[in-house]
């Protein structure tokens, strides 16, 4: 469904994403992990049209979308959320979600029905009239998800929708994401909360210093020395083997 090939994005002398490739199969949940500053959000933004790539190709549903504008990409069925939540602060929760819903209908009643329906799915239905700026962190994360979902996407790019949430809130979001997938939406997610990635994703890609260093099932990734070193520093995997942490 999504094919990224050799994608490179430079900012001046800094290569934020360096020939990264990844695939997302229709109907799957794919995770993208990596240490802070690895370039995950830049990769996301480049895929979704917010940055023009310097090299490489992005194809969505068999069509080349490299360098296309975000709104066009969204219209075709791929939508991203923002790691730093970007609510329309002065609009109500319902109005926020309706902005997404208006993409597929020009009828106010229809947009409202769709938005309310989405709000129900992500658990915001009791806060529809609240100004989005008054939401808690957890609420804002849900709103990001809801707005994106209201555009009726085929592929959802989720950028750290669980960061800053407590364990209860995380497991609620995990359930919501599973339900979204069950409704036929494919999901690519950036996540720092490892436990959540391991529970959700069937396939995981690991980005470090802008390069894709590993891919595989969550179990395989967790055991990959390259991944362990990327997170814990050079030589960490070797030390762990010699001196395993007591379990």
């Amino acid at each position, binding site marked *: 469904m999504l094919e990224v090939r050799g994608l490179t994005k430079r900012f001046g002398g800094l290569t934020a994403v360096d020939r990264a490739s990844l695939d997302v199969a229709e109907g799957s949940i794919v995770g993208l992990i990596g240490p802070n500053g690895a370039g995950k959000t830049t990769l996301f933004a480049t895929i*979704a049209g*917010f940055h023009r790539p310097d090299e490489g190709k992005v194809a969505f549903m068999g069509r080349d979308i490299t360098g296309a*504008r*975000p*709104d066009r990409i*969204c*219209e075709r069925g791929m*939508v*991203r*959320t*923002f790691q730093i939540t*970007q*609510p*329309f*602060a*002065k*609009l*109500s929760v*319902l*109005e926020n979600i*309706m*902005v*997404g819903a*208006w*993409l597929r209908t*020009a009828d*106010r*009643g229809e*947009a*409202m029905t769709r938005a309310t329906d989405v709000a129900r799915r992500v658990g915001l239905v009791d806060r*529809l*009239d609240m*100004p989005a700026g008054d939401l808690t962190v957890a609420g804002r994360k849900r709103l990001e998800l809801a*707005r*994106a979902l209201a*555009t009726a996407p085929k592929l959802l790019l989720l950028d750290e929708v669980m960061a800053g949430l407590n364990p209860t809130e995380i497991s609620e979001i995990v359930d919501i994401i599973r339900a979204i997938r069950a409704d036929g939406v494919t999901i690519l997610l950036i996540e720092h909360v490892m436990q959540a990635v391991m529970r959700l994703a069937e396939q995981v890609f690991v980005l470090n210093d802008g390069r894709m260093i590993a891919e595989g099932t969550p179990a395989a990734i967790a055991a990959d020395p390259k991944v362990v070193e990327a997170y814990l520093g050079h030589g960490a995997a070797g030390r762990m083997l010699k001196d395993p942490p007591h379990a």
Partner: protein
Amino acid sequence: MRSRFGLLCAAGLVAALVYPLLFGGPVALLWRSNYAVNTGFLILFVAFIGQSWNIAGGFAGQTSFGHVVFFGTGAYVSTILHVTYGWNPWLAWPLAAAAGALVGWMIAVLSFRAGLKGSYFALITLAFAEVFRILANSVPITRGGLGMLIKADPRPENFQFRDAISFYYLALALCVLSIGIAWWLTRSRFGARLAAIRENEDAAMALGIDVFREKVRVLALSGAMCAAGGTVYAQKYLYIDPVIAFGVDKSVEMLLVSMVGGAGTIFGPLVGAGVLHIVGEVTRDLGNLVPGVKNAQPLALIVYGAILILIVRYLPDGLTSMFVRRGRAPRNG
């Protein structure tokens, strides 16, 4: 709650309809009737052009410091067509509005293609207005600084009226129409997209909104409305010159009535226009009452300015925020 508000609107409309009849009819003989009717005209007229600013600046968040560029375009286009080419002003009117839309489209395309936002956009509109003023001052077709005089020929089919009341009703109709457009913006897809763009362009883009296209559209709409106002002004006062048509005063006035009344609200410009006009008149009259002051005008302006500061300080969301907890339309089916 909602029906009571509707009732209030209906009552306000009836009052606006009856007002000039009261002051223009029997009472007219006893009191300075034209003053009352003209005051009403000015409030409604400024509310109308203020609403044109509000649609771009308040609803879509594209603050302009040079909205007068549309006003002047409308005034000059209809006046040139009428005076120089002998067009009927009624026929010239839609063309003036179209010219305003075209200028709005042009300014938007140039500014937004160049990626100008916020205060940079505001400044570039100011620059455009100044360029237009200088052009109007220099090119022969506008007769430069001499200005253009429209020959007085007060016949309705000539877009001139012998009585002040007709212009009052025209301004009332335009004001009601502009409020209707603003109301539509609170409920339509176009309006929702403008609000999203105002709040956060990146998020709007991510949700499939063609930000550039919508911003160009709203400026064209706003430009058309404001230019239509320009024609009305020219036909009422029968004279325009570059300073009247493109001077910064009107830009400020449009912006001010919207901000004071409540930018991005349906009734903000009307409330702002009413309050500012009345405050302006009252401070001027009070200034004349202060004993021992020969020229009261500076004093009146100081008081006027102080009142403005107080309003902005204590009601930053405008006067209408006193009545509604939130500036936007409540959720209703």
